[in-house]
């Protein structure tokens, strides 16, 4: 049962990712991305990382994907001459196909070699099938307190930066 679910969700994520690669329509690509994110979230849950799965859905599906959709809609350019099917199309001329192919195959080969020869180590004992949320909370407040606190500085910097860059104090313009 678990094995079937694993392969099912993996296939979902991989097929969705391939669809993004070959689709020329941005909106279709964004919806396929939704499926890929859901597949990966399901894989996290299957691996016993329930918190990661929920976080994946909340952040990527709930936040980033919506932002992406808004981005596509706000930057849309009306094309008068052609029909509506031409909207949202990505026109990327592909040049140097041979080199791209060689490099792509090379990277896949190297990564495959690394992953198949990897001897993954467990850090600590295997976690029992309970929720991981409690452990994460305790760790964040004890041994990982400093990164947790300093991450606030990072968020503050990003907030100030966004506000500063977006603000227009010059009334003349």
């Amino acid at each position, binding site marked *: 049962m678990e094995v079937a679910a694993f392969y099912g969700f993996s296939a979902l994520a991989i097929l969705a990712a391939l669809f993004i690669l070959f689709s020329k329509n941005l909106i279709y690509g964004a919806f396929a991305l939704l499926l890929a994110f859901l597949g990966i979230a399901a894989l996290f849950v299957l691996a016993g990382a329930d918190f990661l799965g929920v976080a994946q859905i909340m952040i990527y599906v709930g936040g980033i994907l919506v932002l992406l959709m808004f981005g596509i809609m706000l930057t849309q350019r009306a094309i008068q001459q052609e029909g509506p099917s031409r909207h949202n199309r990505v026109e990327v001329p592909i040049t140097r196909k041979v080199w791209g192919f060689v490099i792509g195959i090379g990277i896949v080969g*190297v*990564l495959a*070699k*690394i*992953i198949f*020869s*990897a*001897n*993954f*180590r*467990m*850090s600590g004992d295997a976690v029992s099938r309970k929720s991981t949320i409690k452990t994460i909370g305790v760790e964040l407040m*004890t*041994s*990982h*307190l*400093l*990164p947790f606190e*300093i*991450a606030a*500085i*990072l968020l*503050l*910097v*990003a907030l*100030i*930066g966004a506000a*500063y*860059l977006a603000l227009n104090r*010059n009334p003349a313009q």
Partner: protein
Amino acid sequence: MYPIVLLSFFGIVTLFLGFSKSKNILLPATLLFLIIALAGNFLEWNKGPLLYFYDMLRVDNVTLAFNGIILLSAFMIFAISGGFQDNPDSEPAEYFGLMLFSLVGALMMVGFQHLIMLFIGVEILSVAMYVLTGSNKRNLRSNEAALKYFLMGAFATGFMLFGITLLYGATGSFKLEQIQGFASNMQVGSESYILYAGLLLLLIGMLFKVSAAPFHFWTPDVYEGAPTIFTTFMSTVVKTAGFAALFRLLSGSFTGVYGFWWIVIAAIAVLTLLVGNIGATSQNSFKRMLAYSGISHAGYLLIALTALSKPSQNAIIFYSLAYSLSTICAFGVLMLVSKEKTIGGQPNEYYDAFNGLAKQNPLLAFVLTVSMLSLAGIPLTAGFWGKFFIFTSAAERGIIWITVIAVLMSTVGIYYYFRVIISSYLKEGDLVKIRVAPFYKVILVLATFLTILFGLAPGIFEGLI
């Protein structure tokens, strides 16, 4: 440890100070904050290696020395910014706040003992720099530079994070000591390729941040487009922090696999030296030349990393200090001179802006000359001893060929560094006397004095670290 906490707090205080009507209080306040942070930094001098917060941060004399260089450069840069009073569009409170926060990131990169700390430190520093690069919102070049820096930087961060996850997969830990333990106990024949891949990806991310070739493409455009004061910050503080982080990473975790990475770093060092020095010769803009010169100095520092020994640690510290002092002088003079004449509303940053500088402004010409001599590595300046220490550390390791290439490349450097000296002394120009604020003058003279002092007595701090 203290400066990280203090500067986080002071950054927030600075933002609140921005509410006051008068912006005059900001500059003295931030300078005071930096002095307090410097004092707090050296409180822990010679207290031995201390570990804080469940081994997240390590404080030893090397960390404190790097922190000292970063805070001193930041102090000088804040001082010559003049509180951004000359530009009515600027928002000094936000600038100072962002710079103080970015210093927190830089100090975390120097003292990290856990890869999460490295990642958050790099991100704080980078996000603040993306914003400051684009802070001149009315200037198209500045916007372009910020966008380029942001996109390329985000890409490099992805590499770095991927590398960190692979390292975690290989070793089961984010802590430097445990990675070190795993890397030095690897048996021949059963090496962990995933560790090598993780290390390479992590190195790519870090080398991007210090603008080493072939990850340097963003540097000239970003350095040229950013407001000069932030370019100074980028080329001193960011570079020092990046090399401190690289040094800590390689010496703290990967001495066991030295045979694997030294040749990678050596190849990148040679490439960086070639690209930086040869690229700099064909520039007409002084600011762009300094960007390429920054690339080439990254190459010299990488040579010290390939050697990785006790002398190379001191060499990196000395070189960072010498390079930061001279760079601050060079950009400081550029800021004054470029404002005299404008091209299309923007400051003139070409070589010809310096024509005839010495006639009316002998002090500025002298400061510029000393900083150029130091960057070129002429004897009796700090830059000479910096290069000397780096070359000897490489020679002690037995890596002679790389030293030969570096010496050849530093003679190329003399050509483009001397062009601006020739412009300011020998060429005719109509530069009038430039008004320099007294405090600005003090900072420039202090940096020049230190450059000459370290040039005459390089062993002043010997034996301290």
